[in-house]
């Protein structure tokens, strides 16, 4: 029990902060309820997926600056395919989008491994490339998304046989997020692949000498990040109803949430729980400031200041730990 507590100490602290923020939201806006939670969860969904993807590559000791561009590509592919294939075949469209996401991520990873160019440079170059691809697919916002899929991430949970008042406060978008992350990450968590991802993140040379296929693992990590980025792009398209080829502000936000979530930027340490909670903290904070009718630009400053303060304190603590 205490070991679990110690291991998840940071995540638990974040959870406490989130609860405090949600309670203060309720105090600021007394009629904040199910619909407020729902819009919060829906707004957080693309950020959460981007953050999970970013967290995986950061754990593997890399960084993916092209994550927002991959999301844009996935979003426009989804919008175009759903418009052409109709509502009934939207499931196939989703499958194609997810495969495209894995493909784009794997291309990023393969280029890093093959060219031996630093990951920052490769993903910076790919940021241009994927942004260009998104613009080629859809020159201006357009396309459509399937109605039944949009309903999937909107509104509250309804379970058969359970009174609706009991479950409807829980947003569908939140359930979708948790379910998808669990479905993808839980089976992987105990596999050799994830162990290898942590290994190359903490010490690449040691991992190589212990027989970890460093190149393949790196490609797999970027592929996984691409998968989550595609899910994020899909979430954007589903929440707005159209495809948007210009990448959103997800790169910075995802790095901020990863850092706040307790993943070491040097790689090898951290989990996915912390970053996801961190996304909700940042979103709730933004909501609170908006409800307090603070200027949205001041909100941006506060967000940036929090991110910088978190990494500064983290840096000082890490130095203390070393001495």
């Amino acid at each position: 029990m205490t070991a679990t507590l110690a291991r998840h100490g940071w995540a638990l602290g974040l959870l406490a902060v989130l609860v405090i923020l949600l309670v203060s939201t309720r105090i600021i806006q007394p009629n904040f309820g199910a619909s407020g939670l729902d819009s919060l969860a829906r707004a957080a969904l693309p950020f959460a997926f981007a953050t999970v993807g970013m967290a995986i590559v950061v754990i593997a000791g890399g960084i993916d600056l092209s994550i927002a561009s991959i999301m844009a590509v996935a979003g426009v592919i989804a919008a175009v395919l759903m418009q052409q294939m109709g509502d009934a075949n939207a499931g196939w469209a989703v499958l194609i989008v997810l495969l495209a996401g894995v493909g784009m991520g794997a291309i990023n990873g393969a280029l890093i491994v093959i060219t031996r160019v630093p990951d920052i440079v490769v993903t910076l170059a790919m940021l241009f490339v994927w942004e260009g691809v998104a613009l080629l697919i859809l020159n201006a916002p357009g396309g459509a998304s399937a109605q039944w899929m949009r309903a999937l991430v909107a509104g509250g949970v309804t379970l058969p046989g359970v009174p609706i008042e009991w479950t409807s406060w829980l947003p569908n978008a939140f359930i979708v997020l948790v379910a998808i992350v669990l479905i993808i990450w839980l089976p992987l968590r105990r596999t050799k692949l994830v162990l290898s991802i942590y290994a190359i993140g903490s010490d690449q040379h040691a991992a190589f000498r212990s027989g970890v296929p460093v190149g393949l693992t790196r490609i797999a990590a970027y592929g996984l990040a691409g998968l989550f980025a595609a899910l994020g792009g899909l979430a954007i398209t589903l929440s707005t109803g159209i495809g948007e080829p210009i990448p959103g502000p997800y790169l910075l936000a995802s790095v901020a949430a990863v850092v706040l979530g307790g993943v070491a930027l040097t790689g090898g340490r951290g989990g996915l729980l912390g970053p996801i909670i961190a996304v909700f903290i940042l979103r709730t904070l933004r909501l609170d400031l908006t409800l307090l009718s603070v200027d949205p630009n001041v909100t941006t400053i506060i967000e940036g200041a929090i991110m910088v303060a978190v990494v500064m304190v983290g840096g000082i603590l890490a130095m203390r730990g070393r001495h």
Partner: protein
Amino acid sequence: MATATAPATPSSLQRLGRIVQDNPIIPLIILLCALVGLLQILQPGIFNERWVGNTVRFAIPLAMLAACQTLTMLTGGIDLSAAVIATISAFVVSTMTPLIGPYPAMVVALIAAVLMGIINGFGIGICRVHPLIMTLGTSLIGTGCLQVYQRYVINTGSVIPEVLEWLGTQRLIGQVPNALFLFIPFAALILWGLRRTGFGRLLYALGANEKATRLSGVRSWQVLIALYVLSGLIAGITGLLYVGIIRAPSLSLANGLMLPSVAAAVIGGTSIFGGRGFYSGTIVGALILTVLNTLLTLLQIPEGARGILFGAIILIVTAVYVRITDQS
């Protein structure tokens, strides 16, 4: 693999590699000439004094902003806030000029730039935050502050100081842009500073092996703070020049130069891991990117395909560079 099977006499490829390793600027200049040649083939007669003057004029702010990246990359860092700092100084100078006159406005703008540099330096040097994250964060904060600041000066209008317009748009001698009067001393100072001064050598030393440098008695935090303040100052000066060139201040004026400035330094042969790089390469890199931009505009390539080509070229050039110079 190639080195293991090579005969005792060095192959021609190896010899080429060695020449390139000693003079890394040669392939860059060849690439630049090839691009200009391609441009001349596609649009005969484009290569004249006027075009060269214009290309140089637009390459200068990019090369100056890329100086921030070169200097910080030498220590293994990066300054992603440089473009935002340039935008801030450009916006501040053009909105403060009607209020307090051109020269005090420039001073205020540069103070703002240095202030952001100090914050970067504090975070990176003292708190040991990764430069990528620190400068991303300060650029976020800076953009927010700029938007709030805009609220207060919305009624004053904007005037661009004449001296900056003179520097940015006019030509004193033939087709030679006046911006060169600023850039040549600037480049000379950076080149000399990196090669001949203790500070320049400290940057290389920190990038090559920070632990060894610290053990030899260097206070690395002081060097890092000075470096990021210098980087902020350079970015601020770039902003002043750029607003003179563009003549229309906005809240995202120089932000488009962010990624190209990193690209220019990387193409120019500066290692993002630190310890290796030189400013002359960055200058050629900035010229290559500017010519490339002209080429892509000329070919009327759609925006999307331009992005793809731009990214692909950065990647290919860097990959070739890594292959040629890192034969070990």
